[in-house]
């Protein structure tokens, strides 16, 4: 609970309209897309870095927790106030401050929605490559905090590759500028990259300088249908080695495809097992040749059907289908554990086979989809938490999948972050010395442990044996 004095001070800092304390209001800031609820004691809407700084300074003197939040669409609980305290919602800081078309950079506030930025950039023929699946509603601040990826990262890389500079409010309230306005820069330690992907535990981004690219001249989309996952996984690996430089290689198993409402618009055969949605972009002249190469690989790997998607409408429908899989899984079972593992390309097919063995062994439904071109597979364990036996088996299946991932030389999160949901597993992957360094960094920047507690690291974490 926050004292009357703290609430009044927050009202002085942000204005009384920008401090919410009723239970109804707090409930609306208690969750993210992991669908778990932890009530904050208050919600505060800062309008600039000074507000953020003052709130954090107050938090250090009065000792309350602060959890930053963008649109609340994360998939590891990064913005959930697990221990109560203040949710600092950056929704009001949603200005695009500058788009510099000569130097290909944009300066934005953290609350800008990814898609709104893309719309503005589109007018100048530019784009910001990180386009997570939730791009229509997630914020740039959240993208930076989680180092978001998305389908196009197979060609363009992830958020960290497009953040040049940051204004960050440190947990103790100091406002820090880091990085550059230029594409290169090695002056000093790379604090920008330290902040990107720190999941709101090391600082709160209040301004970001982003690197932009000119929009590709043409795009070609190919849909390949396979009888099973492993064939699709194999084909994805080969496509990545064929020199065709795809801008997306998306994998979807049929459990994932069939639960979306968009799937009704396509007549997938009953024996279809998995899809690959492949996108090529670049010079128009090269597209046909590259599309031919992709088709050949898919057919050689046993695809039952490969086609260049003919109409823009169908391409749009396929991407909507892809984007709506995760929320649609609720139609199969009410709850899910979302894993976001990355597997070395050469063993993706093997990984998928073993996942199916786990699925059969535990008699549980597992839906797999993701960015196969990078080996980034979202493995979703579906269950009903009110069914104790099923919930138990789901937990065991997650353990097996994490163990499998580490055994195959993968990582437990490619783009969703560790947050609160994967903390217990992070120690299995991290080197003990790295864990020690991370703990020290957190301690130095946030001596009182007020910023986004209960995320990423645990006290007991000691690193892999």
């Amino acid at each position, binding site marked *: 609970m926050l004292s009357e004095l703290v609430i009044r001070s927050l009202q002085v800092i942000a204005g009384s309209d920008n401090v919410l304390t*009723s*239970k*109804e*209001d707090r*409930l*609306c*800031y*208690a*969750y*993210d*897309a*992991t*669908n778990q*609820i932890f009530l904050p004691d208050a919600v505060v*809407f800062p309008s600039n870095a000074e507000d953020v700084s003052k709130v954090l300074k107050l938090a250090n003197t009065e000792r309350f927790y602060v959890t930053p939040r963008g*649109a*609340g*669409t994360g998939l590891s609980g990064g913005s959930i106030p697990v221990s109560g305290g203040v949710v600092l*919602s950056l*929704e*009001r800081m*949603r200005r695009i401050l500058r788009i510099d078309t000569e130097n290909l950079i944009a300066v934005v506030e953290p*609350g800008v*929605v990814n*898609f709104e930025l893309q719309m503005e950039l589109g007018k100048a023929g530019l784009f910001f490559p990180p386009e997570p699946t*939730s791009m*229509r*509603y*997630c914020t740039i601040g959240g993208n930076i905090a989680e180092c978001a990826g998305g389908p196009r990262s197979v060609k363009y890389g992830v958020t960290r590759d497009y953040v040049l500079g940051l204004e960050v409010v440190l947990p103790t309230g100091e406002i820090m500028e880091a990085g550059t306005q230029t594409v290169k820069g090695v002056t000093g330690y790379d604090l920008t990259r330290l902040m990107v992907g720190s999941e709101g535990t090391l600082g709160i981004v209040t301004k970001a300088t982003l690197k932009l690219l000119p929009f590709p001249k043409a795009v070609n989309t190919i849909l390949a249908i396979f009888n099973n996952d492993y064939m699709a996984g194999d084909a994805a690996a080969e496509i990545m080695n064929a020199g065709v430089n795809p801008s997306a290689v998306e994998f979807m198993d049929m459990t994932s495809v069939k639960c*979306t*409402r968009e799937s009704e618009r396509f007549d997938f055969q009953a024996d279809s097992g998995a899809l690959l949605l492949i996108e090529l972009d670049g010079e128009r002249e090269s597209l046909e040749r590259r599309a031919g190469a992709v088709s050949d690989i898919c057919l050689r790997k046993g695809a039952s059907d490969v086609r260049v998607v003919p109409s823009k409408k169908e391409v749009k429908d396929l991407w909507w289908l892809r984007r*709506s899989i*995760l*929320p*649609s*899984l*609720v*139609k199969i079972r*009410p709850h899910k554990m979302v894993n976001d593992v990355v597997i070395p390309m050469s063993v993706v097919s093997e990984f998928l086979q073993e996942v199916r063995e786990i699925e059969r062994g535990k008699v549980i439904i597992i839906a797999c989809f993701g960015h196969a071109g990078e080996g980034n597979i979202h493995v979703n364990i579906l269950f009903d938490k009110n069914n104790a036996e099923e919930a138990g088996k789901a937990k065991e299946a997650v353990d097996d999948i994490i163990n499998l991932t580490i055994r195959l030389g993968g990582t437990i999160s490619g783009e969703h972050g560790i947050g609160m949901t994967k903390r217990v597993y992070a120690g299995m992957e991290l080197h003990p010395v790295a864990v020690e360094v991370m703990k020290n960094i957190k301690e130095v920047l946030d001596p009182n442990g007020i910023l986004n507690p209960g995320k990423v690291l645990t006290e007991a974490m000691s690193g892999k044996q």
Partner: protein
Amino acid sequence: MKKLADYMPEISMCVRCGTCRSTCPTLITLGRETASARGKLTLFDACISGEIELSDTFVKHISECLLCGACQQSCPNSIPVPEIIMAARAEIINDRGLPLITSAIMKGLRDPDGFVGKTLKLASFAQRVIFKDTSNTGGLQRRLPLPYITDERLVPPLAKRFFLDEIPLNPPFSKGEIKSPRVGFFAGCLINYVMPDIGLSSLKVLEKTGAAVIVPHGQTCCGMPAISMGDFEDARALALINLEVFEAHDLDFITTSCATCTDGLKNKFRKLLEDESPELKRRVDVFCSKVRDITDLLVNELKLPASMSDLKVSEDGAVVTYHDPCHLRRGLGIKDEPRELIETAGFRIKEMKHPCRCCGLGGSFSITNYDLSSEINMLKAEDIKGTGAEIAATACPGCMVQLRDGLHKIDARVEVKHIVELLADRMG
């Protein structure tokens, strides 16, 4: 009608992905999670489980919804959020009752010759005293302080003569006598009391197609204002009146020029009476299946575009931008027909950026939440202005009231017209 708690299965389909944040006009404007469908569903869940009560804050958040349906359309699980919101509003009314004045109006509407009509006639007479005419905008602004109506708000004037008073009383069609489609015209309150010209244009256009048209006497409000407030009891009473009035004529189609009325008569009507006797439900089914929006009827049944093909788009035709009314686009899935009719009337269409984003009227929403309604309206007005169109056309008189207010505020010289007016003008 289902109660709020009956919607628990739908509510629990929300996995809080946040997709609704990208389309909700109140969220885009307020910038707060409480405005989103995701937030409201969370509140319903908490309310049903007894964790929160029907507090003032709850009531305020539930009032901040236009029922535009954009969230339901974008939701991967198609959660029927507007329906659930109406059920929640019904719960609030059960708990707190309706404001006296609202209750009196809703009950008064049951008698078409009763006090509501008489009061409005008196008001039509007196309105030039209370309001000043802001000529050439098609609206009035207040002279004196009035509740709910701010200084700057452009209010549509009441008609000098109401539509239903203009129309001669028709005898019912006798069975089998007429070969052409028999069409019953449902006026609705805005056309009757405020924009009778749209009603007259509708009749002109319908008759041009050779249809036999009558305007059944005794018809009243479609009930949508009551439904959207959660007042199902009054809406049910109005529905039964309209059912009997239209059943008395042997009709092939029932049509309206108001998107909201169409959605009310075709979709909500069925839901309102779903708990009735099988016999009544059968009658309701027959009624609902005959209801067609005028744009849909003109294109798909009466084949108007073919009969006016000599008037097709001329190179120098004025540019029109079309606003999709929520009740037409999402309520009934009608999007191509209105556009086809605009071209039939000889105009070129320039689409705005967000043609199907709500105008912000939302019925009584624009009275209870005028500032928010206005802000949403501004987005629409700027969008229209950006097209450079001379005319903004739509198919709902409610939207027209709102668009005129918004365009007036940003001083954009864009005429707001109903599609049937464009067609009637073209017919000369």
